[in-house]
């Protein structure tokens, strides 16, 4: 259970904490973040209104109470009166709150109706929650990709300095055009997740077997970050969402680029690859593996096993494919079959089996990977 050998190190850091951290990254946000969508705007206004009403009621009621606590003390010699009910007062303080509630319900209903209106969307993105990553399908453009946490594990383990977007950065962002109505279809692969970006004011549960619908229209270009909001297992805290909103022209160019890459990947997957190009490509892809196993394939002793000289990389090809594609239960080794395509998997495995002193001479083709999916 105890993971760190120095649980008191945190206490030691405590004295410099407030001073040190305040200067660097303190936002001290006291309210909802400034929204960038019309719905976000409405919700913020609604929230501010309700909070104001609540605050006024609170101050009103407790001014009376604290006045009483002050003025009607025995130590000041106040004699207790013995009244025990007043129908008039009780009616008043039932009816007035009821009226206030009606006042709150009206704007709330209007906002809610507006939120649920998913008609007339310009484009549709399907969002699928996985343990523990997101998949985005651009239904109108016919491509998809997975989006994973890109924060270095060393930062999480306090072995490296944390970057400014610690835990809120991904390898592939969800790119959306500004000024367009985007409809999201939200579902999940395994357990319930929730897709949430505070600045867009979009939060919807992703439920396996069911689709939910929600929409947004982002007004300002920019990068907006969020997180999974429904407990979904061990790495619930490590599946962020990053939305990059760009002008429509830029979006179109990005889509074209994605489509071209997809066609290229399909063509690549269909043909037989030569040894040199596989190894060259594999060296590139190995950067993913290098995070834990090192660029030299040596790993970190007792933490991350080496690829160099390992049984997996020198044993049967099927086993190597199995480990990389499906991961290893109970270890940080994830299943990469959803993140890497056939070419990338074939290349990286070929590279690993012919590098770092491993000399199996094996050549794996994308087609070999494809049949195992």
């Amino acid at each position: 259970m105890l993971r760190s050998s120095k649980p008191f190190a945190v206490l030691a850091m405590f004295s410099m904490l407030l001073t040190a951290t305040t200067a660097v990254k303190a936002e001290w946000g006291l309210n909802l973040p400034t929204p960038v969508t019309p719905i976000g705007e409405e919700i913020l206004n609604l929230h501010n209104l309700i909070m104001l009403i609540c605050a006024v009621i609170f101050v009103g009621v407790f001014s009376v109470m604290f006045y009483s606590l002050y003025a009607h003390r025995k130590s000041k010699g106040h004699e207790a009166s013995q009244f025990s009910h007043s129908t008039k007062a009780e009616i008043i303080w039932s009816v007035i709150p009821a009226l206030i509630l009606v006042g709150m319900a009206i704007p709330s209903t209007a906002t809610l109706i507006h939120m649920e209106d998913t008609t007339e969307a310009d484009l549709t993105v399907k969002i699928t929650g996985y343990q523990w990553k997101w998949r985005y399908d651009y239904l109108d453009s016919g491509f998809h990709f997975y989006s994973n946490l890109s924060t270095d594990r060393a930062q999480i383990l306090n072995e490296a300095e944390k970057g400014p977007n610690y835990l809120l950065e991904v390898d592939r962002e969800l790119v959306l055009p500004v000024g367009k109505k985007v409809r999201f279809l939200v579902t999940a692969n395994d357990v319930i997740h929730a897709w949430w970006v505070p600045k867009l004011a979009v939060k919807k549960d992703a439920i396996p077997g069911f689709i939910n619908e929600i929409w947004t229209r982002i007004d300002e270009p920019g990068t907006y970050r969020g997180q999974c909001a429904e407990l979904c297992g061990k790495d619930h805290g490590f599946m962020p969402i990053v939305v990059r909103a760009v002008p429509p022209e830029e979006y179109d160019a990005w889509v074209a680029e994605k489509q071209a890459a997809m066609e290229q990947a399909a063509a690549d997957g269909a043909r037989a690859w030569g040894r040199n190009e596989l190894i060259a490509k594999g060296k590139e892809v190995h950067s993913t593996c290098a995070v834990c196993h090192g660029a030299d394939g040596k790993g970190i002793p007792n933490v991350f096993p080496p690829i160099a000289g390992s049984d997996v990389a020198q044993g049967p090809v099927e086993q190597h494919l199995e480990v990389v594609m499906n991961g290893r239960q109970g270890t940080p080794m994830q299943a990469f079959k959803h993140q890497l395509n056939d070419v990338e998997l074939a290349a990286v495995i070929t590279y690993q089996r012919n590098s770092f002193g491993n000399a199996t001479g094996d050549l794996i083709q994308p087609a070999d990977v494809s049949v195992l999916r």
Partner: protein
Amino acid sequence: MATAETAHHEHHDHHPTGLMRWVTTTNHKDIGTLYLLFSLLMFMVGGAMAMVIRAELFQPGLQIVDPHFFNQMTTMHALVMIFGAIMPGFVGFANWMLPLMIGAPDMALPRLNNWSFWILPFGFAMLLGSLFTAGGGPAGGWTLYAPLSIQGGMSVDMTIFAVHMLGVSSVLGAINVIVTIFNMRAPGMDLLKMPLFVWTWLITAFLLIAVMPVLAGAVTMLLTDRHFGTAFFDPAGGGDPVLFQHIFWFFGHPEVYILILPAFGILSEIIPTFARKPLFGYVSMVLAVAGIAFLSFIVWAHHMFTVGMPLVGELFFMYSTMLIAIPTGVKIFNWVATMWRGSLTFETPMLFAVSVVFLFTIGGLSGLMLAITPADFQYHDTYFVVAHFHYVLFSGAIMAMMGGAYYWLPKWTGHMYDERLGKWHFWTTAIFFNITFFPQHFLGLAGMPRRIPDYALQFTEFNVISSIGAFGLGISQILFVYVVYKCIQGGERATQEVWDNPRGLEWTLPSPPPYHTFETPPVIK
């Protein structure tokens, strides 16, 4: 004991001593004491888990525990606090006080009472034992949402079994309470003469009987989904995960009031005593409690606005939830009116009672904010919700119980507690509580989800403050244990009335009351 000639001859004399006295006891005072001490123990266990959570969240990055163990801690903290600390705590108060308040010699079903209590330690042994199984304890949150809970290991089965045992214990306790209140009142103790604590417990008991079986059904379905090939909740077999949430919260929302209504009862006893004035609006208080209990059955889906409901459903649950503000408001206003033009003193029980009125209202108002569906989409599953339910459950239920404990400890033990230490306990608790939980409102609004073991850097400062508050709050409770211990051991002798002319039959008895009381029913004016 000079009561040998009464009808209950056989339980009266020759009760065993030592450990066997507690194992075999059917005396409501003994059983009340057992419940209260058990609740205190669980409060410390659940509190220790909270310390682990706050220690991990003290800084960004993973320091102390891994994410899986963190999830076990959040899950267990909730289960232990709800089912181990708060519910048995209130049953302890009920056991001690209901017979004394309605002039009954004991609970109506003493042997059942013994059973209700002794199921609990076994249930909790099962629940806490699951932490030591392979793969650790349940880690899917106390709400046990499917399909995540279908994935878990053996610990989930142990949790389900434990929930069954705790449910049986609660339902038996509730049956006992209802029968006692209906059949054991002293002559002249009309329903509308009963102290408000008795009223709140009567309504709570009905809530328990209505919803604990529903929870039992839900977890049974979960169990058969896990092992026996049914597919109530697993989409892979054609089930519906959202159905679990509906059934769970059909239990869960009334459960929230099970956790708070007896606290309202305790406040309604304490405040009049220290205001030296009768409770304002007795009948409207009873009606308000009944109203809250009724509404609790038709608001459950406000816990799950984000699952995707049709507009009509969202509107219905928003409006019905908002309505709860009216009876709750009536209660707050009545307590304030009870203080108004009284002759107030601020002994420790009153300090707790006043702060509960004040702090619970913060939780009530944030609850009203959460009821507003569009805004709830932003608050849902964030630290705003965590702050909200700690304001209603800690500074509502727990602090009311602490106030109740200080209020009746002199009656129970025959000794005054240490007033100076009691005040210290109050102030440290109230201050550290706010340091812990107030910043969590800001964290939630800024976008920090609940149940995460690590967070982005912009959440650091408020988490540091919150953790420091939590450590202080945790340490303060050791003081509480000490004050209670010291009071049991001795101290200034308490008078029969203890306080300044309090109302209620319990104050007509000596402090401590004899082992058997009201064998001859009291005369009610």
